């Protein structure tokens, strides 16, 4: 199989630019308001970034859940089917591949990690925390807790999301004097959290993606059931752990090729000198497996 050349950083940069292509926003200190902005992007890209062209699916999902109030006549009563369907369709196609190739915040984390420092391995149980963030901050709190007007809030955006602070909070407050006048405790909380995450990014590979990101949690659930699949040839793999050394998600791909932690950057495919790691679309791989099984029986 043809190995992917390591041009991933270029794809990540191009994706970040394409999703944030309304450059006048950076001059005006205002956000894009065109009709295409309701189109979800398959990554965590804050829709309040001055140049963002699309909608963050995690923000959109919280908005839908927060507005689901059957006791209020003015509530929209939408179940978030559009966003859930969109994420499920992306997941069924490619799983977490957008995390590895398209996500601007994932790209940012990889760039920050290049700062020279002692590097630390994140314990694997941290990966369970992202399901907690998804269940609590994206689903439960927006559905169950209401503000003074009777609506739910976007808890993850408000209290956690460092991508929003980086892509929207810092630039908008810097560019817009009206917003600057409103800065208070919440802003400093979010900037402090961003600084903490950035410190973690220097030490650990993609800490936000691995331990916090609710979008990664959703897409990761599809890794084992997506059309795009990873595969490891046990006969070729020597367990040399070169894949682990190069992996931005810090996983041993040979332990579970389609683990939910894998961001499908395909770094392991190019780093394995034995050619043991490969990727394919389901049909091709299943056919190959059937052929192998048939040869085994013969």
């Amino acid at each position, binding site marked *: 199989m043809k190995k992917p050349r390591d041009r991933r950083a270029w794809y990540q940069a191009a994706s970040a630019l394409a999703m944030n292509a309304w450059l006048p926003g950076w001059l005006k200190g205002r956000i894009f308001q065109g009709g295409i902005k309701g189109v979800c992007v398959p990554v965590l890209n804050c*829709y309040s970034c001055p140049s963002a062209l699309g909608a963050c699916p995690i923000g959109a999902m919280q908005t839908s859940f927060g507005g689901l109030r059957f006791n209020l006549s003015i509530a929209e009563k939408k179940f978030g089917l559009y966003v859930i369907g969109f994420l499920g369709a992306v997941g069924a196609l490619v799983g977490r591949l957008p995390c590895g190739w398209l996500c601007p915040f994932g790209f940012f984390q990889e760039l920050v990690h290049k700062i020279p420092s002692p590097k630390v391995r994140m314990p694997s149980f941290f990966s369970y925390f992202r399901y907690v963030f998804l269940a609590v901050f994206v689903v439960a709190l927006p559905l169950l807790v209401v503000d003074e007007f009777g609506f739910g809030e976007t808890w993850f955006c408000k209290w956690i999301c460092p991508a929003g602070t980086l892509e929207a909070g810092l630039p908008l*407050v810097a560019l817009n004097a009206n917003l600057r006048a409103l800065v208070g405790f919440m802003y400093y909380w979010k900037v402090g959290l961003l600084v903490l995450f950035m410190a973690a990014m220097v030490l650990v590979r993609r800490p936000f993606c691995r331990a916090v990101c609710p979008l990664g949690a959703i897409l990761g659930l599809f890794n084992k059931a997506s059309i795009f699949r990873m595969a490891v040839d046990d006969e070729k793999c020597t367990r040399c752990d070169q894949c682990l050394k190069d992996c931005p998600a810090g996983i041993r791909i040979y332990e579970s090729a389609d683990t939910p932690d894998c961001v499908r950057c395909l770094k392991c495919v190019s780093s394995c000198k034995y050619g043991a790691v490969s990727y394919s679309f389901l049909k091709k791989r299943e056919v190959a497996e059937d052929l192998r099984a048939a040869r085994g029986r013969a």
Partner: protein
Amino acid sequence: MKRKLPWVLLALFSGLMVAGLLLGEYKVVLEKAVMVCLDCIGIG
């Protein structure tokens, strides 16, 4: 079934997405997306 599961999931979620669009959810997402999200930037 294992081989069909991804296609079933793809069809199911594509159907959900279309249902959401037909129910007018695009407008809800758009209305949120074109306003500055004060929560996102830490001012809400």
